[in-house]
């Protein structure tokens, strides 16, 4: 931050005048990511975990004082004897999950993505990943899903974790992905990091593709289009689909390839789709443009000699502002309108 912008931030403000029945915007949307026009499901992660745990005795849940804010409270209430509250102690959260895995249990450890990626990294690296232990780290507030500012915005978690060997990384789009990813990652024999949308989570993918099913490690075409291929992950798949619907009204055909598994990346599908002639390839991620899906796709294309016109949609390489999510998503180019506008401008 420059001196000038720092000084500007400290200038006094007036409360905004609200008009036309429009309520004030706030930064308090920390719980849910609601999207207009989609049905929502409450706490898909918590409910899916309970269902799985009823069938598998090995499943245990741990959190570092964020059970309520990672939907793990649903599991804690249903199976109190299999839930471990670690308090605000992320290092021991990860180490203890590793110890439980060593004793044959299947731990799901939850916190916010910032705390896992930044604070607990060494414990995840050495106690869990180096040992290839089946610990599932499930983290809320990925990317820009809170207006609280950089302390809570995990804008670089994918960049941090992509460098970690053995770790599988999942960035689900919606309630369908989340509910189906829980048994899928439990069946995977190794450590997994999942970004989590929690609270009321929209049902997106089956609206656009009724027979959609999450498959770990697989990218899937959700819609086809002749002009542009958007390769998207996480909630940006929703934004890409919504933008594609808008652009279709202007006669622009936008295909959307959903990549819920960031690592290992489904290179074959990406190459196959990106290699189809003439389409602009755009990556879209709820993450900094440094070290995330965009760079992973770019590497995949270039090393394979596939070189379509290529653009990236993602968060800037910066600590982001505090504010209301809709404002911030517009400001940083990841709202539906901004996604559509960027694509239109690139054509």
């Amino acid at each position, binding site marked *: 931050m420059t001196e000038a912008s720092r000084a500007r931030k400290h200038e006094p403000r007036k409360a905004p005048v609200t008009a036309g029945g429009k309520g004030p915007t706030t930064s308090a949307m920390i719980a849910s990511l609601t999207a207009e026009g989609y049905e929502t499901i409450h706490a898909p992660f918590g409910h899916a975990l309970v269902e799985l745990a009823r069938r598998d005795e090995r499943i245990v849940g741990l959190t570092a004082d964020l059970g309520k804010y990672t939907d793990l409270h649903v599991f804690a209430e249903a199976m109190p004897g299999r839930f471990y509250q670690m*308090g605000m102690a992320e290092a021991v959260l990860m180490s*203890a999950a590793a110890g439980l895995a060593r*004793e044959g249990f299947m*731990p799901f450890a939850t916190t916010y993505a910032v705390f896992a990626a930044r604070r607990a990294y*060494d414990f995840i690296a*050495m106690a869990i990943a180096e040992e290839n232990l089946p610990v599932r780290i499930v983290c809320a507030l990925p990317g820009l899903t809170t207006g609280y500012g950089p302390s809570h915005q995990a804008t670089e978690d994918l960049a941090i974790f992509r460098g970690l060997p053995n770790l599988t990384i999942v960035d689900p789009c919606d309630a369908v992905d989340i509910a189906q990813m829980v048994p899928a990652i439990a069946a995977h024999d190794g450590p997994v990091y999942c970004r989590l949308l929690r609270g009321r989570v929209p049902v997106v993918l089956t609206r656009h593709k009724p027979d959609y099913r999450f498959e770990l490690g697989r990218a899937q075409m959700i819609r086809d289009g002749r002009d542009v291929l958007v390769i998207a992950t996480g909630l940006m798949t929703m934004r890409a689909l919504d933008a594609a619907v808008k652009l279709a009204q202007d006669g622009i055909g936008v295909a959307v390839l959903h990549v819920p598994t960031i690592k290992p990346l489904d290179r074959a599908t990406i190459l196959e789709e990106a290699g189809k002639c003439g389409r602009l390839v755009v990556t879209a991620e709820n993450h900094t443009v440094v070290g995330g899906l965009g760079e992973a796709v770019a590497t995949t294309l270039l090393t394979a000699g596939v070189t379509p016109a290529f653009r990236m949609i993602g968060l800037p390489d910066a600590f982001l502002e505090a504010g209301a999510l809709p404002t911030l998503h517009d400001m940083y180019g990841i709202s539906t309108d901004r996604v559509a506008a960027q694509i239109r401008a690139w054509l």
Partner: protein
Amino acid sequence: MTQSHRASSRFNVSLEQRAWSIRRKALLMGEVQGQGYIGQALGIADVLAAAYFHALDYRADDPKWEGRDRFLLSVGHYAIALYAALMEAGILPEEELATYGMDDSRLPMSGMASYTPGMEITGGSLGQGLGIAIGMALGLRRKRSKAFVYNLMSDGELGEGSTWEAAMVAAHHRLGNLICLVDFNNQQADGKSTQMLSAEPVEAKWRAFGWHCQRVDGNDLDAVVGAFDTARAVAEPVPRVIIFDTRMCKGVPFLERREIAHFVRVEADEWVKALSALEEGRPA
């Protein structure tokens, strides 16, 4: 049956002799590489002898036996000492001693679970063992196991915040099956631990965190054995810690007298001298 297995299965060997043999094996490994954390290994040998020949329940021919007491080496660079103990216990063949630290060896210079039978965790990133021990202790309790989890850490690790997170969590979850062993040799990388970041009063700290705490001379075998017995017998379901005050290079007088450092320099010709010096102090 290997020679080491025969040695390990003899019961008329005193703990003093076990500790001496652990020191000797550590020196032999140090000689292989011409370096190693030999000061720490010589200092902790008595604690390891008491652990592997008095306190721990294990099966030498089945290091993953479900009923075993778990022994975690948080302080990964003490691997040279633990390898010596695992060889003395018959878990590792003594013949592999000559491969210490070499390419393709099962005995890397810092302990890793994936390399070595009997090495429960990958230590070395200090301040991690106690947290892993908590998870294992919780897991064993869920399985209604009678096994204990031991975590060996260094006094330097008392400076890691994660140690104190773990100390709080262990007490909160009333982990009576967890025994933490702290090697207080007052030596860390940059100098004396008490001068780098003093953990004193160390017993008061652990007690304030809700632990049963003992502090004994870690080179007095009777005291060490007594502390293990006491720790195992505590009636309350609280975690237990034993602080062992140890002397670096114990058992090799000319090294004990040397200016002590985290990484004790031993010249090429001194390994043989050190083994001879140890031989002079061989227990009857």
